[in-house]
């Protein structure tokens, strides 16, 4: 649990996943589309993975992955993320946590933009999952 909290507070957006989980892949894709670059922690690659999974379940996350934290706070699993995304709350939360940039001019495809936002280098965790031709994730992001 501590490790979960610790990792979750290290970045504005943190997602706990498993390398084999395709739903995790979907959620990650969604975050990239929104322009965020969440920290990805794969439980099956982590020595404390099993404990962390138990901790996530204790938080009420079912299934245990993907588990999303924004601004250090537990947001939920895929169902919650989608619901929040549809009513616009997800984007707002990401903005509040400074996980996505607010720049309006010339939106450039992530991760080439330079800004004060909390970008981190592309972790390359996608490579773990599979080698899929990645569509332009960030695309044209229109801020409202």
């Amino acid at each position, binding site marked *: 649990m501590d490790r979960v909290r610790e990792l979750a507070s290290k970045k504005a957006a943190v997602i706990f996943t498993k390398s*084999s989980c*395709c739903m995790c892949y979907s959620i990650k894709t*969604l975050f990239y589309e929104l322009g965020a670059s969440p920290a990805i922690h794969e439980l099956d690659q982590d020595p404390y993975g099993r404990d962390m999974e138990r901790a996530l379940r204790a938080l009420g996350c079912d299934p245990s992955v993907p588990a999303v934290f924004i601004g250090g706070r537990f947001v939920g699993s895929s169902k919650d993320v989608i*619901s929040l995304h*549809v009513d*616009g709350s997800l984007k707002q939360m990401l903005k509040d946590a400074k996980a996505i940039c607010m720049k309006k001019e010339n939106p450039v495809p992530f991760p080439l933009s330079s800004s004060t936002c909390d970008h981190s280098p592309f972790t390359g965790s996608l490579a773990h*999952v599979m080698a*899929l031709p990645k*569509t332009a994730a960030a695309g044209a992001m229109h801020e409202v």
Partner: protein
Amino acid sequence: MSPFSIFPFPMFDVELGSIPAHGNRAHFEASCLRLLRASTFTISQLLELRVWMANLYLGFTCGNADSAFNSAKASGQPFPTDRSYIGTLDKTPNSFTINPSALRVESQGLHLERGQQTGPVSISRDHTENWGESDMADASPRTDISTDAETDEKNLRFDSEKLNAAVAASDSSDRSKSNLDQKILRRLAQNREAARKSRLRKKAYVQQLESSRLKLTQLEQELQRARQQGIFISSSGDQSHSLGGNGAMTFDVEYGRWLEEHNRQINELRMAVNSHAGDAELRIIVDGVMAHYDEIFRLKSNVAKADVFHLLSGMWKTPAERCFLWLGGFRSSELLKLLVNQLEPLTEQQLVGVSNLQQSSQQAEDALSQGMEALQQSLSETLSTGSLGSSGSTGNVANYMGQMAMAMGKLGTLEGFICQADNLRQQTLQQMHRILTTRQSARALLAIHDYFSRLRALSSLWLARPR
């Protein structure tokens, strides 16, 4: 012992008590007849009564053996011997033959009436004449009953008359054989008639069954053809592979019912909108429609657990709808696109909200689609590794099992995708409802319904097109 103690109709015991048990047999018979005519019996009661009375006669008289009785006995029919008053049957009185027409008590009749409750059927049989058709008559008892009942009533009336006549005859002379023979012959003729009628009835019934069977096979073929063409058919009972309450067939039926109710609600909504109903009334109906949408998502989540491939296949939808199928349902972003034009006028804020909603649902759809692609890729990789492996046979089997296990795990995640897709649809609808006013929501729901019902109509037209 008094035979009355075993009279089958205890309710008449009181009246019978007035009939002296000893003494003059004629007196006794006359009293019995009075009782018979005075009381109301059902047909089966009358039949039992005849048997009982035949036995009474036997108890009263003893006489010559009768050829009819002997032949019946010789046919091996068991005869109940637990009643002492039957004990004298070895020497069958002539009176026994007086009354076969009256009482129809060849031993076969006796046995059957004791053993069966469907009286009328057994009556038309007479084993003294060896009709092969007695079995046939047995096979379709139901069709026999009505006419047999009539015949029997006639016979019964005849019987009581004959009983009377027999009483008189036995009083005057000593059972003149010619009288008996005539009665026997008459009764035999009637039985033949009844048997013939029942044969004809049975023939008619069998023909009816045959034609129904043909019709049934024709209908089944039509149904099969129609199902192949993908017409949505809500049927029940002709396939047995639905699991519990959540199988594919059950879901199809439930979906059909849901659709009916949905159409009904939409009609109500349309009438309310056209009649410029107030906001309060509209809100009630709109909330009802939204709640009903929640219901279909609940049903879908149930069947996703049991048979996710049925949902994915879209076989529960019409062909044209299936064309637009995305992860087991409609695409919310498409729906919003077609709504935007129809919902004018929208305030600035609403326009922004709807456009955002469209974009969000598009993004979510993309994310889920990519997840599905990833799943497919992963699954095909799992199934394709090591198929040409050169390790020993046991190694291959172990590999195979391992692959299958992994593939099974991946297939299990399909349910999650369908659920999230439905979740997306449900959230989109609800968010739309929040952004719009009640009246706008009403118009939006009508527009959505019209769109899909046109798609369904298109499917029907397509399937019915001349080729």
